[in-house]
């Protein structure tokens, strides 16, 4: 398209960047992710007319299914999981471009069939040879699919590869997988998903920090006492026993979501919001993270307990889990970011399954007022200011400040100034996958993790896990429905601090 300089009619027009025509190929189309997240997200994009007019979805999985059976199943999924009302006209328009192929990912001939079908679609629908491959498959299948699609001859358009987490299971395997990918794809064609980065509230951290003049001057070791990041889930491992046994909390949450939240909290201002500028700053933080030693990392595993009034089984009783499993379902750690801004400021992080509630928060706790000029009684109520970013639920930001209780004397109580997303913006928040799928189609990698970030994340995890090999904790060590093992409380208590109250 011509620029505004060449075409004066374009000046001032708010033209949304609709992706170019393309085929989206979902490997793992019969899986849970496709049903619960990908199709509801695609429907929501279609609902808002954000998909290109010339667009086709091809589902690929081992399950034998016809096009119609696949469409019917996805229709049910959209009706069940979409955030938008179900409209036949929107679905019909989307379904018109849905095909399904039952194929063994490792079978060259079956993937030949896929390639032939895509060439047909290019002819019929004008998708121009552009491909987005979405690997919604277990990690074990990544490599074979990457090799297969990589060795099939490329069509004339662009190709993008979306890879779900986890990207490898340690630094060596991540590097190996990356080497396989780079045999066939350029780094600019690879989109490694960490869906937390697609969440509005995570992106709002960037807005909060870099669009407001008041926070950045105090966003450093001079004013911040410490940072607490919590990623708590009340649910257990659901039906993912086999995967979770291999991953544990450190690979499932810490290595990706948690370190990305930390990176966004601690990063320096990027010069602009292009993909590389943002990722350059994040990787500097990831490279600077260290944990002071094995005692600064706590792991736990849940036993029987109560969640929302219901008695739930312990981790070792979950289906697909070794009854003597030593896999951790909880990790808490004290981390430091060794740079000018954050030297000696602890970042306490914790994440776990079967905790009392679902909550993802980033709490910036500021240093106390140096000399409160109040009587002792009044000063008792004085607590440090906390800026709390609610990633989920109750998406928003609140600032805890001390306020005088009305009446005689001077008593101080902590009150909250709240900004709730649902309160200020009454439009529904888009699901992370909507944003990420659209960005990948547009070729915008800002909210995807680059290989050097992944490698830094694995380096830290490998260092922690190596220390774990030397001891054998008495699992289970926290009942389901509690905030983790007592040693997690000890971790902060040693520093004269405590986890935020609930």
């Amino acid at each position: 398209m011509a620029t505004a300089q060449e075409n004066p009619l374009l000046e001032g027009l708010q033209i949304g960047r609709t992706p170019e025509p393309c085929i989206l190929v979902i490997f793992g189309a019969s899986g849970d992710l496709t049903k619960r997240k990908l199709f509801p997200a695609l429907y929501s994009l279609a609902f808002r007319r954000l998909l290109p007019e010339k667009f086709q979805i091809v589902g690929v999985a081992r399950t034998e299914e016809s096009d119609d059976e696949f469409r019917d199943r996805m229709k049910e999924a959209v009706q069940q999981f979409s955030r938008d009302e179900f409209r036949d006209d929107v679905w019909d328009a989307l379904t018109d471009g849905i095909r399904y192929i039952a194929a063994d990912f490792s079978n060259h001939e079956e993937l030949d069939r896929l390639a032939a079908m895509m060439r047909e679609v290019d002819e019929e629908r004008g998708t121009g040879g552009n491909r987005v491959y979405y690997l919604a498959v277990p990690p074990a299948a990544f490599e074979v699919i990457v090799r297969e699609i990589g060795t099939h001859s490329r069509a004339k358009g662009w190709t993008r590869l979306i890879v779900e987490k986890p990207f490898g299971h340690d630094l060596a395997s991540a590097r190996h997988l990356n080497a396989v990918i780079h045999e066939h794809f350029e780094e600019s064609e690879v989109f490694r998903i960490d869906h937390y980065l697609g969440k509005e509230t995570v992106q709002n951290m960037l807005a909060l920090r870099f669009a407001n003049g008041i926070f950045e001057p105090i966003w450093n070791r001079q004013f911040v006492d410490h940072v607490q990041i919590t990623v708590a889930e009340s649910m257990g491992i659901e039906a993912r026993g086999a995967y979770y046994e291999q991953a544990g909390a450190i690979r499932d949450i810490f290595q990706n979501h948690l370190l990305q939240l930390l990176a966004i909290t601690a990063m320096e201002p990027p010069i602009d919001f292009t993909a590389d500028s943002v990722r350059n700053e994040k990787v500097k933080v990831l490279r600077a993270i260290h944990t002071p030693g094995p005692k600064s990392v706590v792991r736990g595993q849940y036993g029987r307990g109560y969640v929302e009034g219901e008695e739930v089984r312990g981790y070792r009783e979950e289906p697909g889990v070794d009854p003597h499993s030593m896999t951790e379902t909880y990790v808490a750690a004290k981390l430091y970011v060794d740079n000018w801004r954050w030297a000696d400021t602890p970042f306490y992080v914790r994440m776990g399954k079967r905790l009392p509630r679902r909550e993802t928060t980033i709490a910036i706790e500021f240093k106390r007022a140096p000399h409160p000029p109040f009587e002792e009684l009044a000063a008792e109520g004085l607590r440090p200011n906390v800026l709390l970013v609610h990633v989920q639920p109750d998406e928003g930001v609140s600032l805890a400040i001390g306020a005088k209780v009305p009446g005689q004397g001077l008593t101080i109580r902590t009150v909250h100034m709240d900004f709730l997303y649902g309160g200020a913006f009454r439009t529904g928040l888009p699901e992370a996958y909507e944003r990420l799928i659209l960005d990948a189609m547009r070729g915008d990698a800002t909210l995807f993790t680059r290989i050097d970030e992944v490698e830094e994340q694995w380096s830290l995890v490998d260092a922690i896990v190596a220390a774990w090999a030397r001891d054998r904790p008495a699992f289970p060590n926290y009942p389901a429905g509690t905030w983790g093992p007592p040693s997690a409380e000890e971790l902060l208590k040693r520093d004269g601090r405590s986890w935020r109250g609930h």
Partner: protein
Amino acid sequence: MARSLTSIREIERELSSLRMQPGAETPYQRTSVMTHTAWVPTEWVEAAEDVLSGLAERHPSRTVVLFPQPDDQDGLDGDVEVDVYPAGEGRQICTETIRVRLKGPRASAPASVVQPLLLPDLPAFLRWRGLPPFGAPEFEQLIDVVDRLIVDSTEWPDLPESYRGLTEIFDRVVVSDIAWARTSRWRPMLASLWPDIAGVQRIRVTGTAAQAHLLAGWLRSRLKRTVELEHDSADRLHGVDIDGEPAPFPPGDPPSGADVLSEELDTFARDRIYEDAVRGTLA
């Protein structure tokens, strides 16, 4: 039935009591992203209420609706409403609507009523129904206390001549025109006809007079050439012919009135392309 309030102080007191959640110790949380003022002469009351309903839910705001009643006996007669919406887990937020009837001479001093009701530090929008009385004290006062004026020139008679008054105030207040917003699907479509459209001499627009004049004004101002306009009257924009050739219809459905107004309330910057288009209508 809402209680009649006769001073700003009474309005504020009533708002504060309505904000208290019945039976609860803490008040509802008030969330506001703007003050939205609407000037609604009698003939526009029904239409204005239609659009306002639902708007508060999308843009939590304090809405001040002014009903000028210059022929009544001097006085101020207000009522307030607090609407509560769920937000987050177990929380409710409230937004406020203040309706004030400005009677007798007070109808010509509306700024003195609006100013104490503006929420501090938040943008203030003024929605003016019908053709504003450019130069009249009530209009001049109000545009000096708000950040953005929203009009719908579809509601105006004598186009394009009525645009002349508007061009005089562009340097004083940022202006949004719903009629212009309703051409937003067509402008990218017409822009996509570049370079063929560069030498256009005549357009024929089937739509409202405002849409026709604004599209012609836009083409004249952007292409810096004379473009003749032929207008076929219709209640919405149905088609544009470029030198006798129909332009392709833009994709998608036209947005509703509330949607268009809602989008304008998210806009803060001055729209110089619109301002040029308005000047272009008079060329």
